[in-house]
């Protein structure tokens, strides 16, 4: 698909994931122990034939730069294609100014360089698969100015609270894009995924800057809904946001059900990631593992139930891990009971024997902490 280039967006100011995001951008969050969130938008673009991809980051880019590398593992041609990481250097002290628009404007030169007539914009903080070449086709067929992707949900009252919702007319024309007020169950959640002409994208960025320094891309599209033909396309298949701590926990846990996982992963739509060259996982005589996802390089002597185990974890003898997500390199010591927790990378749970949070309100153990 030589007619479009891709942009993977940074999070905007209303999104903050307690704990995890202190260490890395959402795109670098672990998913199912093996993936990082950014693998989804990048693989979606690569599989759709988009081989010029710009990843925008605001803070703590290290983990993502390391993970993305040259992009070769995403099946992107190393001569014709390019995976660029663009970091915002002028992060303002006041977070309200740190919008996606500000980040794009700062890198305008790189956007203007693109010779592709269209741009596909996708978030680096949501999990879904989508063939963008189909979306572009729908966009050009309809003659719309902007086509955006949405997902209809029936739990918008309690979840997706920091996402945007769409108001659509019967012809799927977008009337407004607003922050989810949490007042109704059934909503069309904006997937922050847009297709438009590159020229229009640049025009909108300039317009946003003139109107308000606080405007995001969603804001400026919202106020342009009357003048422009903005249309929604419904997304089918698995969809999860990584926009607050509970949603990160829930999306990982949801994948334990193999049927749910199969609604996200399919043979003909590979999700690529960076290999860590870990050896297989070793189970010992005392291991007792049920209903779980286990990544490579781990040593398991204890009990694991309904959990996601990342790469290179150690679950010691007599340890019990239940309804938990253990990120790579963490250790659960002998006899330690962990329940309803997200244990960040390399944390060691050794001395405290009971690390239990209540169901439905998962706890968080910080990276590199020893408990």
């Amino acid at each position, binding site marked *: 698909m030589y007619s479009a280039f891709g942009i993977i967006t940074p999070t905007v100011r209303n999104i903050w994931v307690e704990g995890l995001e202190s260490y890395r951008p959402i795109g670098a969050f672990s998913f*199912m*122990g*093996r993936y990082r969130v950014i693998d989804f938008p990048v693989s979606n673009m690569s599989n759709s034939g988009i081989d010029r991809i710009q990843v925008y980051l605001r803070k703590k880019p290290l983990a993502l730069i390391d993970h993305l590398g040259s992009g*070769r*593992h995403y099946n992107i041609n190393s001569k014709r294609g390019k995976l660029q990481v663009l970091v915002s250097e002028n992060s303002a002290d006041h977070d309200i100014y740190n919008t996606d628009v500000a980040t794009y404007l700062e890198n305008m030169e790189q956007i203007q360089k693109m010779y592709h007539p269209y741009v596909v914009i996708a978030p680096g903080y949501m999990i879904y698969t989508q063939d963008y070449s189909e979306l572009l086709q729908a966009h050009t067929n309809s003659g719309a100015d902007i086509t955006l992707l949405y997902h209809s949900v029936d739990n918008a009252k309690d979840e997706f609270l920091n996402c945007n919702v769409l108001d659509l007319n019967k012809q799927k024309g977008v009337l407004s894009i607003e922050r989810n007020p949490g007042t109704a169950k059934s909503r069309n959640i904006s997937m922050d995924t847009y297709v438009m002409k590159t020229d229009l994208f640049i025009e909108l960025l300039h317009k946003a800057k003139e109107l308000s320094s606080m405007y995001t891309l969603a804001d400026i599209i919202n106020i342009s809904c009357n003048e422009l033909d903005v249309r929604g396309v419904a997304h089918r298949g698995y969809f999860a946001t990584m926009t607050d701590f509970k949603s990160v926990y829930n999306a990982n846990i949801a994948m334990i059900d*193999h049927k749910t*996982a199969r609604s996200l*992963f399919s043979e003909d739509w*590979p*999700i*690529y*990631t960076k*290999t860590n*060259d*870990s*050896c*297989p*996982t*070793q*189970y*010992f*005589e*005392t*291991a*007792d*593992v*049920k*209903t*779980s*996802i*286990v*990544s*490579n*390089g781990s*040593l398991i002597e204890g009990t*694991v139930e309904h959990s996601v185990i990342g790469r*290179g974890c150690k679950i010691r003898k007599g340890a019990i891990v239940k309804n938990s997500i253990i990120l790579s390199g963490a250790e659960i010591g002998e006899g330690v009971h962990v329940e309803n927790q997200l244990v960040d990378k390399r944390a060691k749970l050794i001395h405290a024997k009971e690390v239990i949070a209540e169901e439905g309100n998962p706890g968080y153990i910080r990276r590199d902490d020893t408990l």
Partner: protein
Amino acid sequence: MKQNNMLAMILAGGRGSRLHDLTNKVAKPAVSYGGKYRIIDFPLSNCANSGIDVVGVLTQYESILLNSYVAAGRRWGLDAKDSGVYVLPPREKADENLNVYRGTADAISQNIDFIDSYSPEYVLILSGDHIYKMNYAKMLAEHNANKADATIAVIEVPMKEASRFGIMNTDEDGRIVEFEEKPEKPKSNLASMGIYIFNWKLLRKMLVADMKSSESSHDFGKDIIPSLLNDGRILHAYKFKGYWKDVGTIDSLWEANMDLLTADNELNLNDRSWKIYTEDITTLPHYVGANADIKNAYITQGCLVDGEVKNSVLFTGASVGAGAKVIDSVLMPGVVVEEGAVINRALIADGIRIGKDAVVGSADSENIELVAKRVKGVE
């Protein structure tokens, strides 16, 4: 070539016919091992970890898979500017007929032009079908300290097994005084590992002479090493300590896999300072179901386990259905064990399906059963 001026040549042409059906379509170095690896990943990763940049791989028998596998040098990081893995099958040359490699030495002789193009000071000769971790840079340092013409890596084997190997008899300084191929009455237990460092200029001269000799079998062990000793050259033994296995048979391949199940096993594939690199396959992490019971097992990505797995190694994408039992067995990549099937002391070849409630192998068999054909389920 910047790093240590040593180029490696891996001999990977052998069939490994005692592996029967496993090597019908692939050469022995391409046989799967340890859940996610192929045997040749070991010498290639050792090269990468030892700072060797250029590796030639000499292939011959059923080499399609092996050629394309090793040509992707970036799997082992051997793809920097002056680095690469080069596949070297026999080829037609202007002044002679197409010749197969007639022996280990001949395979190198026929590629003198390739080695010359890098003008290395040393050439490291390796076998593509051994499982071990070794730092060749240390061996080179010893080669240089001894001012040797050639250095041969050796490993101590039990004296009663020594007559199965090529044995090096050395003086107290480790200089080799005699080489005996499979001696009836071995004088030492230092077995050659088939790993040699030569000064290239000297080896080149020897190979050119060897090519012309009508009596030579063109083999390193039988011809090159003995004539170097005859010439009074300085040959040293480099003593290797650690895990080393030549998996020649189904039983020994099974055993090498079982070795990984012991805690703190000698091979230790979990050592982050000496990783073994391999093909990066796009699969999910492995899934463990509600009915699973896994004890003493080595399981890799892409597997689906809902049955009982005891004392077994599961390779990429293998699946074990509910109620199935896999005991003391090895399931190669993509093996499917359907519900209720029972597998005991068996090695199931790549992609084989074991049907519902089928029974394969037995707990008290003398040898490991190789299953290379689909086993139908009980109707």
